[in-house]
Each structure stands twice: as C-alpha cells, then as structure tokens.
C-alpha cells in the first residue's frame, strides 16, 4: 500500500512538471467542445433551393412562399423548366429543386392528389434525407391550411378521420445536434485520456529503462498498475469536469441529471479504457506503437457506439458487435443523464454491462502485464 502511494506521488510530480500536460488537461476540453460542438452538426440549414412552377396559380405561389421564408432553405429563385433545374443541380448552384406540376391548384381543389416532385442532390446522403424531411413537414402544414379552403376535400377528410401526427421532441426540443454531440465528446475525451495516457506512461518507462529497474524491486504487479492508473483516473476526472463546465459556459448545456451518477458511470466506463491502455502497453515496445494500438481500438469503439451513426441503421451483424463495445453503453448513459436527467436505477443495465466489460478488460490486461521481460 505504501508503495502505491510513492508511485502515485511520483506520477503526479512528473505530470505537474510537464507544463504542456497541464495545458492539455485544461485547454483540450474547451477547444474540443468549442470546435467539435460547432462543427459536428447534423442540423441542415440554408439548403439552396429553386422552384419550377408550371402552374403559376395562387396555391403554387403560396407553396413557393412557404419555402422561401423558412430557415432551412435558401430560396434561390424560380426556374423555367425541369431541364434548367437539373442543370442548376449539376453545377451545384442548388441542392434541391421542387417541381410543381401543371393544374396543381385545380387538381387539389377537385380532390385529385397532385404530386409535387423534389429533385435532391444526394451526394451528402445525410443532409439530403434531412432536407427531404423538412420538405415533407412544410407540405403537410400547407395541406392542413388548404383543407379548410377546399370544401370537397374537407368533407371527405371528416369521413376518413385521418390521424395527424404532430411530433414534439421531448428531451431535446429543438433537436439541436449540439445537445447530442457534446455529451458524446465528453465520453470520447474520457476514453482518449485514459487509454492513451495509460499506455504511453507505461511504455515511456519501458523506453527509458526505469520499468526494468522497477521490475527488480519487490513492488508487486498490482501495485505497479494501480500506481499508474489511479493518477490518470484523477486526471480524467478533472478533464471531465472541465468539459462539463465548458459545455455549460459555451453552449448553455448543463446536465439535467445527477452529477454523481455520471461520475460513477464514468468510472465504470473508464475501467475498460484503462484496461485497453494497459493492454496496449503489454504489446507495444514504443510510445508510438502504444498510441497506434489504442487508436486502432478507439476508432472502432467510436464508430460503433452510436455517437455519429445510429446503431439501428447498421446491419444486424454489426449491431450484434456493438454490444461488445463499452462506449455504446456509455454514450447512452451520458446522453440520458445530460438530456433527460435519468436516474441511476434506470441505467443499471448499461452500468452492469460497462462494469462487467471494464473488470474483464482491466483484469485480463493486468494479468498480461508481467513483471518479467520477454
């Protein structure tokens, strides 16, 4: 026990002596949250749009107006034909064209369903999908407005009892992606700092030769590992708090849930990333190798976590793999705590999964870490 304290004291001395390191701990969360929070956005705004209006009626003009007032679209003007619209898309002047057919108003009033065509630049599939959703929203809104005017239609509607769905987002009312991204950044930050620093700090001692010296002392394996890991847990904890503060100050995003629940869950999660770092240190001979090994696993962890890509969109096989990814659970947990204020009791499944993975990775990696040379 005493030996662990001496190791911890030594680690902190080394950390505090490294000025860049302190800058990293306190500067990095701010920079990451500012840059990534603003840059990574799935919100789609100002999609350049043109309209081809073959009908030139009162209703078709109303439709054009509706598109030009919204923030989501940037109305670039009317075009004369479909060919012109396609050309504008080809040249990248617009990302979406709406084509209103001839007799739009007449058909609408007669109750024949007229079809509006939307031509979308699908190169950026995500944005295209979101733009389409906006388009649908606007046309549904217009339909409701017109129902009152078209007597025949409203009479029919009364018979059909069409269910109108009015979506209301409960926990992220404005559906702002920053609310989703920032907790995710906090999660990846914990992962980064624990996995990288653990691996590198052990391998650095191997490189300079002090690890060999420690190996001939009576220090025990577990003491050596705890002495390495505990200071980094403190560092990660500081970093998390700086991140929480940064998110609040910059985006006004304060967590709804209990901060101690988050601390506890973060610790469970960090067990597996610390384990990853220890594992990397047992395989790597140089700090670069350790970093690369940790990076290799982290990329998969992030991509398969549901941070950027919804897990439901993945093929079933890949979805199965994501259950082995501790970050998958932590992303859910940190979002729930941040946006919904979910209580610990409702997150026990995720907590359990992270705890089991964490202990397994941590213990297996520690067993691999031998006080002998190969």
């Amino acid at each position, binding site marked *: 026990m005493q030996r662990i304290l*001496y*190791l911890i004291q*030594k680690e902190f001395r*080394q950390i505090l002596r490294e000025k860049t390191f302190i800058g990293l701990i306190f500067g990095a969360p701010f920079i990451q949250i500012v840059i990534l929070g603003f840059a990574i956005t799935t919100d789609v705004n100002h999609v350049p749009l043109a309209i081809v209006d073959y009908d030139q009626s009162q209703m078709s003009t109303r439709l054009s107006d509706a598109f030009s007032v919204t923030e989501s679209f940037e109305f670039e003007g009317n075009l004369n034909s479909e060919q012109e619209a396609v050309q504008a898309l080809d040249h990248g002047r617009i990302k979406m064209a709406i084509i209103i057919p001839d007799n739009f108003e007449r058909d609408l009033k007669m109750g024949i369903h007229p079809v509006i065509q939307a031509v979308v630049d699908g190169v950026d599939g995500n944005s295209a999908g979101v733009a389409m959703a906006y388009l649908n929203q606007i046309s549904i809104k217009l339909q409701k407005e017109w129902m009152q005017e078209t007597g025949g239609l409203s009479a029919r509607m009364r018979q059909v009892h069409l269910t109108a769905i009015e979506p209301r987002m409960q926990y992220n009312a404005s559906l702002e992606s920053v609310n989703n991204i920032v907790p995710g950044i906090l999660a990846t930050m914990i992962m980064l700092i624990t996995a990288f620093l653990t691996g590198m700090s052990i391998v650095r001692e191997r490189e*300079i030769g*002090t690890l060999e010296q420690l190996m001939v002392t*009576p*220090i025990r394996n577990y003491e050596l590992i705890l002495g390495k890991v505990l200071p980094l847990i403190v560092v990660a904890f500081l970093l998390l708090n700086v991140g929480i503060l940064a998110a609040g100050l910059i985006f006004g995003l304060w967590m709804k849930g209990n901060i101690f629940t988050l601390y506890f869950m973060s610790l469970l999660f960090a067990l597996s990333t610390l384990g990853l770092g220890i594992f990397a240190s047992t395989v790597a001979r140089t700090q670069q190798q350790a970093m690369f090994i940790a990076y290799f696993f982290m990329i998969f962890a992030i991509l398969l976590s549901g941070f950027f890509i919804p897990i439901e969109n993945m093929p079933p096989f890949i979805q199965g793999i994501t259950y082995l990814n501790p970050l998958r659970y932590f992303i859910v947990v940190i979002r729930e705590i941040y946006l919904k204020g979910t209580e610990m009791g409702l997150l026990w499944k995720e907590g359990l999964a992270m705890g089991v993975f964490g202990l397994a990775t941590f213990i297996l990696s520690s067993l691999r870490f031998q006080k002998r040379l190969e």
Partner: protein
Amino acid sequence: MVTVEVENLTRTFGKFTAVDQVSFSVQKGEIFGFLGANGAGKTTTIRMLCGLLMPSSGTASVAGFDVYTQPENIKKNIGYMSQRFSLYEDLTVRENIRFYGGVYGLSRPQISSKTDELLEFLKLQDQADALTASIPMGWKQRLALSTAMLHDPPIIFLDEPTSGVDPVSRKNFWLLIYRLAEQGKTIFVTTHFMDEAEYCNRVSIMRDGAIIELEKPQTLKTKYNVNTMQDVFMQVVEKKSL
C-alpha cells in the same frame, strides 16, 4: 559462503541459444567479473539471476532463493543497475532517492536518514533539489547505484555500469564498488573494459553463450603468458574463434 549458485543454466530465444549450460558459483564478498563481447550472453545471464527472465533449463539460486519459484524473495536481496539509465530525469535527486526508498519499502524516517546519508556520501548536497537530468553522467551513475541499494541488499548486480562514463568517473565508481565489497557485499559485474577486469577477484569470459574461462585475473595472465587482461581477452576470444 556461496551466495550465487548456477548450474547448467540455459536460455533460448526461439532457435537461438543466448546462454548455453553455464555453471559457476560466487562467494560472499567477492567481486565477480563477467566479460565477453556484445551478444555473448552476459546480460541474459544477469537478467535470469535477477528474476527478470525465466531460464529455459538448468538451476540457479541467488541468496539461497530459487530463480524459478522465488523471484520476489530474490528481489528483496539484490540491487540491480543496468546499462540503461534507471533514474527519473524529470525528478530531482532527492525525489528519486525518496521514490526508490518508498518502493523498496523503507519507512519515512529511514528514507530521510538514508537520503541525508547518501547525499553526503556522494557529495550531492548542493544538487539535491536539482533535476536529475542536470547533473553530470558520472554522478548520475553513482546515484543510480546508491538508489539501487537503498534497501541494503547483500548482492549487487551491475550490468555494464560504466558504459558512457569518463575515465575519472569510472575510477570513482570502482572505488565505490571496492568499498561495498569491503562491507561484505557480493558484486556481480559485467563489463567490456578490460582494465576494469583487473579489479575483479575472479573473472569469467563468455563467448557465444558459454563460459570459456573462469579464473583469477593473475592466474589467467600467467596461463596465457601476457601482462594485461586485455591481451588475455583477445587471446581467449581469437583462439576459440579460429
């Protein structure tokens, strides 16, 4: 009294035999030199004796403890200093001593009295709070040896302790080794400086993983009819490789 006993000790790495059936024993208070070209198997042998490396076959005991089954007991009874640097350059001299003292399980008062004692002994009082990186190499080497002995072990393993050190510092280092031997400590040292070999009580010369000669320096010089250990070494190595 025998403190290190080695019998047919062998270590292979894949098909390569680094140490090939080596046998010897070292007496208490002896300065035992281990000579040989690079790659002759000196470091591998020393690492097996320190419990850093598992032997492939053979037996070895250090301070009465078996290298296979009691490496942790061995570690309590040895000091080890490798050719690689073993101090933390970003810690001060005092912090290094304190850290290793703590790791070797010394109590707080023991650590502070040891620190004062060592600083005085090495004449490092003025640099006690300077970063280790800033003190001269020769001093670092003696400091490294002293920290490796904070727990007062009866046996000391030195793996090329003086490589990269100027001649004056080398001489000072050997004076330190002599003092330790006088105190009854067993010194096991590898080197490829042949003048250092003259200072040893007995030397063994290794080549291709095997011990070719094991004698007192004087006996070897008489046997090969030369004046220096340098000439002995050249003759031994060349004769066998022809």
